[in-house]
């Protein structure tokens, strides 16, 4: 590993904006293993990814959106929500525009299957829309794509 990559990034790097606004109606988190990222790629919808690294600019939603995220965490489900997502939701602007949650996971994890999505839906009082495993089957992709379309159509009619 080159020594330079170990250097701490400067505190006030003006080249990197502090935050980035997104109009995407789907915002997701995916770890370095990228399974959730691959699911999102298959959806082929406009979307924004919550930054993985601390020094990347903070993501801010500008439009109502659905959050899609996998579950990590221990035996009792503690710290099941990735810290990057906690940071994202701690921003009130992001919380106010959240309309629904989709969870990725693995049923092998028993009671913690999709727990992060379940917890966020409960805490933010929005519906848990769908759950799928790992990077999703072709059926999952179709159901989420079609489901989101109907969901947003209904939302827009309701608002009128």
């Amino acid at each position, binding site marked *: *590993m080159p020594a330079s990559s*170990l250097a701490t990034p400067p505190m006030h790097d003006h080249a990197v904006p502090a935050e980035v606004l997104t109009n995407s109606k789907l915002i997701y988190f995916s*770890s*370095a*293993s990228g*399974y959730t990222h*691959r699911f999102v790629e298959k959806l082929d919808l406009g979307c924004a990814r919550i930054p993985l690294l601390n020094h990347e600019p903070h993501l801010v939603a500008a439009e109502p959106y659905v959050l899609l995220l996998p579950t*990590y965490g*221990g*035996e009792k*489900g*503690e*710290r*099941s*929500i990735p*810290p990057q997502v*906690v940071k994202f*939701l*701690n921003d*009130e602007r992001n*919380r106010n525009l959240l309309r*629904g949650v989709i969870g990725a996971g*693995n*049923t*092998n*994890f*028993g*009671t913690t*299957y*999709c*727990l992060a999505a*379940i*917890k966020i*839906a*409960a*805490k933010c009082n929005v*519906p*848990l*829309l*769908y*759950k799928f*495993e*790992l*990077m999703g*089957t*072709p*059926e999952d992709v179709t*159901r*989420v794509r*079609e*489901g989101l379309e*109907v*969901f947003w159509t*209904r939302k827009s009619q309701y608002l009128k």
Partner: protein
Amino acid sequence: MTEKLKLASHVEAINWNRIQDDKDVEVWNRLVNNFWLPEKIPLSNDVQSWNTLTEAEKLLTMRVFTGLTLLDTLQGTVGAVSLIPDALTPHEEAVYTNIAFMESVHAKSYSSIFSTLCSTKEIDDAFRWSTENENLQKKAQIIESYYYGEDALKRKIASTLLESFLFYSGFYLPMYWSSRAKLTNTADLIRLIIRDEAVHGYYIGYKFQKGLEGLSEERKQELKDYTFELMFELYENEVQYTHDLYDGVGLAEDVKKFLHYNANKALMNLGYEAMFPASVTDVNPAILSALSPNADENHDFFSGSGSSYVIGKAVNTEDEDWDF
């Protein structure tokens, strides 16, 4: 087997303060936090329930568990260890030693179940059956041959298919018993194994995909073809094995759906698309909910009107460093 497994050719003192791949630390921590021993589970509470099973059901259960013991032994003593020489980082090596040890804990825990529920003679008979069953032996041999092979990435493929696919013809049964409120403590123990295997399959599959980075398209295609060929070979054998075990109790078709479902997950762990269509992966909902109480379809908001949505049960949302 007289061939010696390759050892890591060069070892340096491991420095956990210099991490090349954060996934190594994340998975190490996860595995350590998940650590358990069979003594933690009150298996003796299952004795009464065991006595309600028919002789055929008891025999089936014991055979299933000796089969699982064989796979865990193979993965503990050969499989996980064979991955060490080709680790990309020293921390990956350390994770494999953890995986190897846990597989030995799994293998031992079946013996805890046996000694709690069965007589010595019954145990010996079941172990004899496992050494004589052709399809069980074949699946161990197929995997073992790749562990001794030269191709590091193929070893990871074989290992992931073992962790994420080959166990499930066996795991089905304790989930089935649990769904009928039988052997529920045994099922609790098996759930711990199932959870561990998911982390193992995820991690080895992830390292496989790291290994693919920078390879030629030709070599990537070769490994993909190889994965599906090996999956088919194992699947055919697994179907035979399933019939050997479950025909007597009429569950073979139900088990096969569980195999398809898990084969898809094994392929996804390696970064490949699911192979079996939804029409053959419709696992019995009772089995799915024995596996995960959150897995029920009622949480599919998209498929319903949306108005019937209720949050399943109270969840503790207060330990996540919320600011609100």
